[in-house]
């Protein structure tokens, strides 16, 4: 359960809006509190526009922290993300965060494997940094996307200091790296046997497949970052229910407080797959 005392509602200037290939956007703003406190996998509720439309904030993983600045990676899927992408340097961004429970980073981890599908890349630049800060010797990032242009640039996973980070890519159409799915590469990444954690973020089918692959040969820590439509982001509206296993039945957990990062084997994957996609065209 996340500790809301660590969260702060702050407003800071946008300093950079980068248009990456394939429609990805990286937004960087001066948010000192978030920068000082965010842990990989935690998120911030960002204000998109200042009218009553969109009404609610939008959740985004903290992708990177540099001094007092935080970066977010997203694409334009609806009104909120379009407004964020249209921000210009000097505009004010409102952020409430950090929120939620991030990835579990133990001390003395050896190799950690990150499985990033599409925009599921977002939490991993920060994770790669923080895992190494905690002593991990090797971070393998398995990153898949539909096509080469939509891969998050490998150098952004390893910024600051590339040592110990490996990025392995796959594309559905074979335009770069392995021709196929990111999950196909997991077995390879686990070889060697010194993997202490697998972290995954991406579309639900990919996460379910990852969980299935790891069902038998799982390292100590196996976690996924999940999404749910959110009313508040801090545990009050009870809107962000996720289906978790409880014995033979399903129980609801709050994505914003118990998650977004959940132990892989605790998720009720069948129930999750049955849910409609969060994004309504």
């Amino acid at each position, binding site marked *: 359960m996340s500790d809301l005392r660590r969260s702060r509602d702050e407003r800071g200037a946008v300093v950079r809006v980068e248009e990456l290939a394939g429609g990805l956007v990286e937004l960087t703003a001066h948010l000192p509190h978030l920068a000082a406190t965010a842990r990989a996998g935690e998120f911030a509720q960002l204000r998109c526009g200042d009218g009553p439309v969109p*009404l609610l904030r939008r959740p985004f993983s903290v992708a990177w922290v540099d001094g007092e600045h935080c970066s977010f990676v997203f694409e334009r899927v609806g009104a909120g993300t379009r407004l964020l992408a249209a921000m210009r340097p000097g505009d004010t961004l409102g952020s409430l965060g950090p929120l939620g429970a991030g990835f579990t980073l133990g001390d003395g981890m050896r190799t950690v494997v990150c499985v990033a599908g599409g925009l599921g890349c977002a939490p991993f630049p920060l994770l790669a940094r923080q895992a190494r800060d905690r002593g991990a010797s090797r971070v393998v990032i398995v990153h898949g996307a539909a096509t080469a242009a939509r891969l998050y640039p490998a150098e952004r996973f390893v910024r600051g200091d590339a040592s110990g980070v490996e990025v392995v890519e796959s594309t559905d159409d074979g335009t770069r790296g392995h021709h196929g799915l990111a999950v196909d590469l997991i077995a390879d990444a686990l070889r060697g046997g010194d993997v202490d954690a697998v972290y995954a973020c991406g579309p639900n089918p990919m996460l379910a497949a990852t969980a299935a692959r790891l069902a038998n040969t799982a390292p100590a820590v196996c976690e996924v970052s999940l999404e749910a439509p959110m009313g*508040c982001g*801090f545990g009050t*509206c009870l809107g962000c229910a996720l289906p978790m296993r409880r014995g033979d039945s399903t129980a*609801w957990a709050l994505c914003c407080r118990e998650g977004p990062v959940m132990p892989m084997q605790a998720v009720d994957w069948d129930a999750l797959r049955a849910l409609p*996609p969060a994004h309504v065209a």
Partner: protein
Amino acid sequence: MSGESTVDLRVPLGRGVELPNPVGVASGTFGYGFEFEQLIDIQRLGAIYTKGTTPQPREGNPPPRVAETAGGMLNSIGLQNPGVDHVARVYAQSFAQWRVPVIVNVAAATVDEYVHCVRVLDTADGIAGYELNISCPNIAHGMDFGLDATAAGRLVGTVRGATERCLVVKLSPNVTDIAAVARAVEDSGADAVSAVNTYVGMKVHLAMRRPVLPNRGTGGLSGPAIKPLALAAVARVRAAVRIPVIGVGGIATATDALEHFVAGADAVQVGTASFADPRACLDILDGITAYAQRAGLARLTDLRWQPAPLPA
């Protein structure tokens, strides 16, 4: 126009309950206060109306439970709550330490269940009163009482007999004649009414050719989109009863709150606005206080519009 505060913010709600100020937070948008306690100074509030609390713990509805609309949001939480025993036994101990009055929102399916809830909660300290939720659109039978003046009156009469605590009744706007329901619950002993709960609405997932929300596909609409509807409802209820009216619906700024006072409110609740801006309720309190001082108001209810009597 002087800087000196002469405005009296207190709101006598009945049965000895006096809210320190008129700005409360709406049921279901503030939990039981424990999350917001970590984010803002909740003790400054006029009242906390808790999440709807039922006889038994409830898991709530399957997701998705929230969906955004133009200037509003739909929710179908399904009254997820730990049940009345837990609230009385555990949560109320915290409430008793707080300065802010806590009014427990109670939801149930039968008269007996409402009475049961109130009796259990009556055993606990730290609870200023009850808000009877007869208007939840998201559970079976949640609105049964709220849609029928006679049934509402009977329910309130029975609950009135069961508790000495202050009884607020939360009205449903999904009715032909909200004034009739308000009058019925006033006649049956309600100390105040709150208006309004959410409006039944639907969002459609075109690609899936079905509603976004589960079950019947509907949820409760709240937020700025409903402010004009809520103001009309408050004015109509105001004209029908003498007990205090607590205005709820679309309040996100001090101006919104003041508009509810013009329409006829004695106090207000801030709901959906707290999600995007956890400080909204306190900013609204500060804003209406400053406004009242600038305008030299003795009471906020001095803002009230007195409609000319209508020709019958």
